[in-house]
């Protein structure tokens, strides 16, 4: 023991031991809560949550011993979830998943099977015998595809407009300001619903509407950051050496605007994942045979989820964990790269 971790000997009992014990107890409770069929759902959820809490506390202590006191367990938890989900989405076609959307092929499957975490339907099935794990993963695929492409589009367009407005100022800035304010005159979800009235609900249209939501925020941030840098010495020096506007914008200002804007983009992803899920939940997003977390949760409406809570809880857990992970990662990125002093 002493030659393994000599630095931890000052504290008693050693944090390594407490950490490991907490993590093991937490893991046992988590697995017990998730798999025991004898308990009712709320009790299961409570035991599993307690286990998760203990597991995180244990992992936090272990991490602090291993990587120093700056270790942020929640951040790594979020990052690990995103990595796992990303891998699962990429490999989904080759994973041994049950049927996710073709109702005709699931006639023989059990309906409303409860999650057992083992066997052919680890997360249970819905009213048509479709596998919830497969549906959640394919739902994650469309949800993330939509949100990521919308954020990418919104960031590029909004960032470019904001930088131009912040650099040239005067009338350009005024026009951009009025345009963004008008876009902000309608609350985000209402704007989405209004667009859903007239646009066909397929992937590209939903992504386009969501991109429209991200633009005002991006414009404001890019504009403020550009203005803060526009009169700094290195920009003045570049201008004095004869650099053109394009060169100043791309080579001098863009590298400084990029990090804050990208950090906002990460936070924006979680907002868009929620917006997309809300739209599907309201029946105005991607339509049912194609699974999304929102329309999977909508399947539990009425009396269905009162008898079969897992119909809502399974996609709900995916949605929560993903939004949480993007929030944690985004907050971390913002704390590091988006200093408050930059905002005007």
């Amino acid at each position: 023991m002493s030659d393994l971790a000599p630095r931890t000997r000052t504290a008693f009992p050693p944090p390594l031991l407490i950490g490991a014990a907490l993590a093991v107890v937490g893991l046992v409770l988590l697995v017990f809560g998730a798999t025991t069929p004898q308990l009712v759902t709320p009790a299961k959820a409570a035991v599993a949550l307690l286990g998760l809490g203990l597991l995180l506390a244990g992992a936090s202590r272990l991490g602090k011993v291993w990587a120093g006191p700056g270790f942020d367990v929640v951040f790594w938890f979020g990052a690990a979830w995103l990595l796992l989900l990303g891998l699962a989405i990429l490999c989904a076609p080759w994973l041994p998943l049950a049927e996710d959307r073709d109702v005709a092929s699931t006639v023989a499957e059990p309906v409303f099977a409860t999650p057992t975490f083992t066997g052919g339907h680890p997360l249970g099935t819905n009213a048509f015998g479709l596998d919830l794990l497969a549906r959640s993963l394919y739902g994650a695929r469309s949800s993330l595809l939509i949100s990521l492409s919308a954020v990418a589009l919104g960031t590029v367009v909004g960032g470019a407009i904001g930088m131009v407005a912040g650099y040239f100022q005067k009338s350009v800035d005024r026009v951009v300001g009025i345009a963004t304010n008008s876009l902000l005159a309608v609350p985000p979800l209402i704007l989405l619903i209004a667009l859903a009235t007239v646009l066909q609900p397929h992937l590209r249209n939903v992504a386009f509407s969501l991109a429209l939501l991200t633009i005002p925020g991006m414009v404001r941030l890019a504009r403020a950051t550009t203005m803060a840098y526009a009169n700094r010495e290195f920009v003045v020096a570049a201008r004095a050496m004869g650099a053109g506007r394009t060169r100043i914008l791309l080579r001098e200002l863009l590298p400084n605007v990029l990090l804050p804007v990208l950090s906002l983009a990460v936070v924006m992803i979680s907002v868009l994942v929620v917006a997309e899920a809300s739209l599907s939940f309201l029946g105005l997003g991607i339509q049912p045979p194609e699974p999304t977390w929102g329309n999977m949760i909508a399947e539990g409406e009425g009396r269905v989820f009162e008898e079969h809570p897992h119909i809502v809880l399974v996609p709900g857990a995916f949605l929560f964990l993903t939004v949480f992970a993007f929030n944690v990662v985004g907050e971390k990125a913002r704390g590091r790269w988006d200093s408050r002093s930059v905002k005007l």
Partner: protein
Amino acid sequence: MSVAALRRPALRLLELLGVLFIASIGVFSLVVLMPGDPAVDILGAGRAPSEYAALRTELGLDQPLVTRYLDWLGGALTGDLGRSVVPPQSDVTDRVLSALPVSFEIAALGLVIALLIAVPLAMWSAYREGSAADRIIGAGTFGVLSVPSFLAGLLLILVLVNSAGWFPRSEWVRIGDGDLLGNLHHAFLPALTVALAELAMFTRVLRGDLIVTLREDYILAARAKGMNPLRVLFTDALRPSSFSLVTLLGLSLGRLIGSTVVVEYLFSLPGMGTLIVNAAGQGDYPMVQGAVLTIAVIYVVINAGIDLSYGYLDPRTRRVHV
């Protein structure tokens, strides 16, 4: 008030009208984005061409777009938002006016609940900064922020309606029916759902401000005089810490409206949310236009009001008039 003092609100009003004008063009041009022919959508396919033409004339679809926009805007300014294109073709203004009070009640009640919970929670958290309670409140509010309102609502139904049986599930009781208690009983759960996300945000922001305020010398002086910590928190620390809460109130208004819409749909309450979602599902564009315009006007006006109120709340933001 001098003329100079009135200039800022007047300019703000002018800007506000301009923004609303552009937004109204945007709302109206939704029809242009619409695929297909509204007349075919309403009557269904396979009718005689003259029937479609007659309906188009009746709806004014054969007029140029600018004329139609001006007609619509003129109607909207005089309180006539047109008629729904979906049977029973009800009057849009009537439907909006009957839906608004429900939404207002849910949103306002949600805000009150959020503040009632957030203020003590933030005080406790800030007063015991770094303690276990503070960390648990911090983690809890961060977690709540990641729960979309429809999911929160379903979970609340699962726990409070199904397991505990404390609240009825649906059936809305209007305030006007005289049964105030019944109304509150029905409104509480939707309002609590709306409140959850807001209260997490409020708690986090107010906690941050309170921590800064509590480090001020005058707080130390008050404590040194032997004043009760609770009294110091409420009378000395809360007011100077509440400015960013007011800012946040404005910023979170959009989210508040969004979650009210979703929650109304979830609890099937006859508010603006249900109205607009159903109309959107049926492609009932006059209804959507009317409802969106109404919401936009309310949203922009409240935001402008909050903007102007800074000057009265915080003297530092007032311009110096000579």
